[in-house]
């Protein structure tokens, strides 16, 4: 029924099956929308946040999706600026994932603020010395860049592309995509970094605080670096999930291998820097404020030293080694294990830099505050996942996302 909209040379499931998928995921989406409306109408008392946990699940989700969506800017940077041309076969999907991640981040922020109707004050009354201001500006600008990168893909839909203006527009936008990609990389460097700076500048919170260069704490650079390192891994993970779901190979092995290799080297260099940062913080920064490392990892039911091991060893060193060594990287099973570990590692890092910063008592007579999210927080965090699945499903069905698909899966 919708075959006229499906790209030439590829096969898709029946419209009925597709509709069923959308309906199931759509139900989850509606659940999230309901929770979102509750938060907007009734206020943030719908959450389990409190005066000790001003930042909680949502801010973690925000930081995590932005880190994972870093695949878009870094793959774009590699393709358009560095000149890794093979990556043209995965860049569309990286852009799509980035678009989903960033739109989700903006949506979550809109739910997270206490007075959503005043959200624009962050632009109007901007305090340029605040990391959050930089995040808001760069995030919005980069979302505009991602939209610009996504639009030509939409215009390449078989029917839309028949409209001469759309056809020319898509072609022209592709023509100067390097300019947009470079702008995107510039903006991403700053907003990824500023997100790292959010906790890094909190000199009242010794767990999050880091020294640094000029106005930027070390976490500024670590966050940018980790997003560039782990983002491509997330793109590869999503590619694998879509390949499993569609039962087809969508990207050639050499492309996957190249991106995995780059991601591996980036993770390796990042984790060395992260270890150096952790050591300096544990041996110099925190003791200068009267804390030992174990003050941050004891006397509470959740945050043990295991979380540091999970983040750095399991989520950093191990995936880095697997992805850097050619033998292990080319083993599909090991590669996927490394990618999943990496995604967990960066997500744990973001969790720690938001939630644990809030949990650690600073005044000696204060206590470890624990937190678990309310169902409304969980639902609104799942909402972007459902939205992402729907957008990927629609884009995969109707847009030429994977240029190698027709060649890898010839239609008789």
């Amino acid at each position, binding site marked *: 029924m919708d075959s006229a909209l499906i790209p030439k040379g590829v096969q898709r499931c029946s419209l009925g099956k597709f509709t069923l998928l959308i309906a199931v995921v759509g139900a989850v989406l509606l659940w999230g929308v309901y929770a979102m409306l509750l938060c907007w109408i009734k206020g943030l008392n719908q959450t389990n946040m409190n005066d000790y946990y001003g930042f909680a699940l949502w801010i973690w989700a925000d930081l995590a999706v932005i880190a994972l969506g870093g695949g878009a800017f870094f793959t774009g940077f590699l393709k358009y600026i560095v000149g890794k041309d093979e990556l*043209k*076969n995965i*860049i*569309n999907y990286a852009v799509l994932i980035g678009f989903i991640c960033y739109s989700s981040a903006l949506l979550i922020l809109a739910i997270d603020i206490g007075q959503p109707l005043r959200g624009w004050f962050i*632009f*109007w*009354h*901007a305090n*340029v*010395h605040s990391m959050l*201001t*930089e995040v808001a*500006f760069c995030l919005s*600008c980069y979302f*505009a*860049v991602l939209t*610009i990168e996504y639009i*030509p893909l939409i215009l*390449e839909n078989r029917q839309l*592309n028949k409209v*001469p*203006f759309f*056809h*020319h*527009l*898509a*072609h*022209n*936008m*592709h*023509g*100067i995509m390097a*300019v*947009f990609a470079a*702008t995107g990389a*510039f*903006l991403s460097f*700053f907003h990824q970094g500023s997100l790292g700076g959010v906790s890094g500048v909190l000199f009242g919170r010794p767990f999050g605080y880091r020294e640094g260069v000029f*106005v930027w704490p070390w976490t500024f650079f670590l966050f940018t670096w980790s997003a560039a390192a782990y983002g491509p891994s997330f793109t590869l993970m999503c590619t694998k999930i879509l390949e499993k779901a569609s039962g087809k190979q969508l990207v050639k092995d050499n492309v996957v291998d190249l991106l995995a290799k780059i991601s591996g080297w980036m993770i390796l260099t990042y984790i060395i820097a992260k270890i150096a940062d952790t050591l300096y913080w544990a041996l110099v920064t925190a003791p200068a404020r009267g804390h030992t490392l174990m003050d941050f990892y004891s006397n509470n039911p959740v945050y043990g030293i295991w979380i540091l091991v999970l983040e750095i060893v399991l989520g950093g060193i191990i995936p880095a080694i697997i992805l850097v060594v050619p033998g292990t990287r080319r083993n599909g099973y090991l590669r996927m294990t490394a990618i999943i570990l990496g995604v967990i590692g960066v997500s744990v890092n973001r969790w720690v830099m938001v939630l644990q910063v809030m949990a650690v008592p600073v005044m000696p007579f204060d206590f470890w505050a624990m937190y678990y999210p309310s169902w409304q927080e969980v639902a609104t965090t799942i909402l972007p996942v459902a939205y992402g699945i729907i957008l990927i499903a629609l884009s995969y069905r109707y847009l*030429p996302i994977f*240029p190698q698909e027709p060649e890898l899966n010839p239609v008789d």
Partner: protein
Amino acid sequence: MFPGFFEWIWDGGHMLFMGGLWYALGIIGLGLTYCIFKAAIETAQGDGEGHGHGDEHH
């Protein structure tokens, strides 16, 4: 966000921040305008199949 607004201070931080911001916005805006105008002109000229599809794309 714009000079002249309440509490606007022209210090180094503002210049750096706003400079970077408007530079990025300028590039995005100009790039988009260029694409749209070029596409409009090409469409008006009827250059529908003037270039191959899918070669340099993606």
